[in-house]
Structure formats: structure tokens, C-alpha cells
């Protein structure tokens, strides 16, 4: 078991976002989370990365409880990368520095080694020409691809993708999704929160429908999208179909 969430609870003030969520993810598995806004997708991913402390329950990475209070989150975060909806590149740093910062400061690699990693990853995703550009000089799609490269540079075992195409113009969505397609099968475990139903159907080994802070239904993409059992899943899919998002 790569990752396990047991009875995870998280509230913001009075609002319950995760209401005792259980989840098991195998190594190399690609799991997508769908559900309406506020169903807890983003919070779930942020909790796994320890950006949000959980109120109750436990999170295990390869059987090791990473959510216990007082544990240094930094070595754990090295193993779990996250890509955000709004890219969150560092605007005052070049693409190169965005990617090498954590390599030199956290993993203590030499500048040359870090550069080499940055260059080879950028090449792999067709961004090597942009290495000395600043984020403002890139399109949204390019920025998001750089953000993915930045997370990958740390060679994480788990990659969390938090609605990574939601802030993009429609014509830029494809190039970002191509990066994720390329990553699938490389052995990395991916948790994907998304509104792109077609993409979730195509890329996922498993799809989870979140409702009211719990996994209401999960199964293969075929089962969730073609034969949903839970009434809430059906309603949700009908709604997104109505606005043409599948």
C-alpha cells in the first residue's frame, strides 16, 4: 500500500470538509477525484501533502504514519509533490531557479547536478528553451508545465494534481494533460482532483466520487461514468453533462 487515509476528518471553523474519509492507493496507481465544488477534493490533496493539519484520523505513506503531530513535514513533502490550480511559480525567479531551488536547498545537490536535472526534465516536456524565462513571460499552459516539472524534480513517489487545468484557457488544457499522460506508467503514484471528466475517464485506474467529505462511490472509470450506482454520482454526472463538460 503506497498511501492510506484512515477516517480523516478536517473542518474549517464550523464547516466540515472531510468527514471521516478512508482511502487506499497502490503504488503506481492513478486515482482521480471528482465531485462538485466544496466536496473536499482540494482539501484532501492538501492534507496528504501536510499543508493542512488533519483534525482526526491518520495518513500513512508506505505504512508510516506521516500525519502524527510534531513530525517534521519537510522530509515527507520531498516524497509527495503537489501541483496547484494557480501554478504558484515563484515570480521573481527564472524557470531554472524555480526548479533548482528545492534541489539545492532541500536535497543539497550541487548547482551543476540541479541544473542537469532541470534541463533533462524541461527537455522531456519540450520546455528547454524557456529555462531562463520568468513565469510572467510564459503562457498559462507553459507555467503549469513548469510547475509540474518543479514538483517532479524532487523525484517524488506520489504526485498530487489539484485541478491543474481549471485556471487555463481551453486551448491550453491539452498541453498540460499531455504531460500527465506521459507520466502515467512511469511508476509514479498520482492523485488527481479534476473537473475534466473525459480526462479522468481516460487516465485513471480508479475514479472516486466525493460528496459531503466522503468517498460516496469509487470504481473503474467505466463503472463510474457508465454505470454509477450511487444516486448522488448519477445526479452529479447528469449536471456536468448538461453543461457539456464530459
Amino acid at each position: 500500500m503506497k498511501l492510506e487515509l484512515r477516517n480523516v476528518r478536517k473542518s474549517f471553523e464550523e464547516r466540515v470538509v472531510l468527514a471521516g474519509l478512508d482511502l487506499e492507493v497502490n503504488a503506481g496507481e492513478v486515482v482521480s477525484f471528482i465531485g462538485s465544488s466544496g466536496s473536499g477534493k482540494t482539501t484532501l490533496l492538501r492534507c496528504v501533502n501536510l499543508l493542512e493539519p488533519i483534525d482526526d484520523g491518520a495518513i500513512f505513506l508506505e505504512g508510516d504514519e506521516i500525519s502524527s503531530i510534531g513530525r517534521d513535514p519537510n522530509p515527507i513533502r520531498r516524497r509527495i509533490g503537489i501541483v496547484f490550480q494557480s501554478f504558484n511559480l515563484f515570480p521573481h525567479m527564472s524557470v531554472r531557479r524555480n526548479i533548482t531551488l528545492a534541489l539545492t536547498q532541500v536535497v543539497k545537490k550541487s548547482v551543476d547536478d540541479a541544473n542537469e536535472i532541470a534541463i533533462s526534465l524541461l527537455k522531456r516536456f519540450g520546455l528547454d528553451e524557456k529555462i531562463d524565462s520568468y513565469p510572467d513571460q510564459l503562457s498559462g499552459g507553459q507555467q503549469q508545465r513548469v510547475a509540474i516539472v518543479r514538483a517532479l524534480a524532487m523525484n517524488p513517489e506520489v504526485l498530487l494534481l489539484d485541478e491543474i487545468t481549471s485556471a487555463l484557457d481551453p486551448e491550453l488544457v491539452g498541453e498540460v494533460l499531455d504531460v500527465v499522460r506521459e507520466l502515467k506508467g512511469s511508476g509514479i503514484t498520482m492523485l488527481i482532483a479534476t473537473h475534466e471528466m473525459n480526462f479522468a475517464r481516460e487516465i485513471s485506474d480508479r475514479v472516486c466520487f466525493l460528496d459531503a467529505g466522503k468517498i460516496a462511490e469509487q470504481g473503474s472509470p467505466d463503472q463510474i461514468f457508465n454505470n454509477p450506482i450511487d444516486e448522488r454520482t448519477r445526479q452529479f454526472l447528469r449536471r456536468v453533462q448538461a453543461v457539456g463538460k464530459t
Partner: protein
Amino acid sequence: MPRLPRWDRVRESFFNRERLIDSFPRLLDAFVLDIKIFAWSTPAIIALALVLAIARSSRNPALFPIRIFVIGYIDIMRGVPVILWIYLIGFGVPGVGLERPFNSPLLWGSVALVLTYGAYIAEVFRAGIDSVHESQRAASRSLGLSNSQTMRFVILPQAIRRVVPPLMNDLVSLQKDVALVSLIGPIEILRQANIDKAKFANFTPYIGAAIIFLMITIPLTRTTDYLLARERKRTSATRVR
């Protein structure tokens, strides 16, 4: 036009050409001391302000007492007029019987400026730190950088860039407030103007001092405006007419 029967006398005692020409070189000489005080105080002020702002913005629960101390310090320094601190520190500290050169009013006047302006400018830096979006911190921490690495590499560089214009505003104020140190002794431009005034029973040296201050503060202010405009252009969308 109302009649100003005593205008001739005012012109004679405030705008006396001869007195101005006579005093101006002495005032300029004395102004060198103002510039010196400004020059050595500013780096100390910036350093102190940064330390205060970083301490105040820290999130480590263990540093809570330090945060309280810093907040108290900033409130107290900012809540009392600068001139009062110059009196209290400039007269008070040497009063404990320090030997030369540690009893110099120049030294303790400068220290008073550093302690007060450090508090003012700490608030400028803190506003800058707060203005950096939380998502930048999230991105940095998610890569495994520690809190202090995040502050050093991600937050502070962005924060400082943003606060350069308001910082310049405060430095213009400092440039003028340096003259307050004259009140505890050192012969800088304001004191020199006072001496000349007394000697010739004529107020024109004050006008001379004002001109010299303006020669520095107006270019500084214009530079600040330019930086502000550039920052606004950079961060906001197309200007609405």
C-alpha cells in the same frame, strides 16, 4: 491686495541676500553631518526593521513570546514622538556616566533615530511580507523548504521589491528628522542656522537651511513617485481612463 506695512522688515530679516550668501557655505558644511547621520543610521535601521518584521511574521508557536515582545516594542517606539525619544535616549543614556566617546550625543541621537525608525520601517516590511500571497508559501513548503528557507528565498525577495516605494517615503522623513538630533547638541545644519540667526539677528539662515533640505528631499520624493508609478504599472491591469 491688502496692505502689508511691515513687509519690508520681513524681507529684510528673512530674505536678506547678503546674509544668505554669507551663511550658505557654513550651512552646507554643517549639512555634511546630517548626511553622515543619515548614511550610518539607514543601514542599521533597515537591518533592525527586517529583524523585527521577520520576528513578528514568524509562525512558529514557540516564538510567541518573541512576537509579543516585538509587537510591544513597535507600539511603544511608534507611539511616542521621535523628538521625545531623542531627548530620552540622547540625554538619558550618557547620563549614566559613560566615558568618551560613548557619551557623545551624536552617537545616542543616532541610536534614538535607529530605534524609532526601525520600528516604523518594520511595519513597512511586515506589510510587504503579508502582501505575498499564501499560495507562494504553500508552493515553497510543499517542495520541502523549511519555514525560514521559505522566508529567505520566496517571501522576502518579493516583499522587499514591493515595499521599496513606501520605504523611500520613510527615508525622506528620516532625512528631515535627522535635524532633530541638533536639539541635543551636535552642530548640524539646523543648529548652524540657529547660531547664524543669533549672531546676525536675522532669520535668513533658516531659509538657507530649507533650500538645502529641499535640494535633497525633492529629488528623493520624485524618485519615490517614479518607483510607485512603475510598481503600479507592473502589478495592475490596463489603466482605466
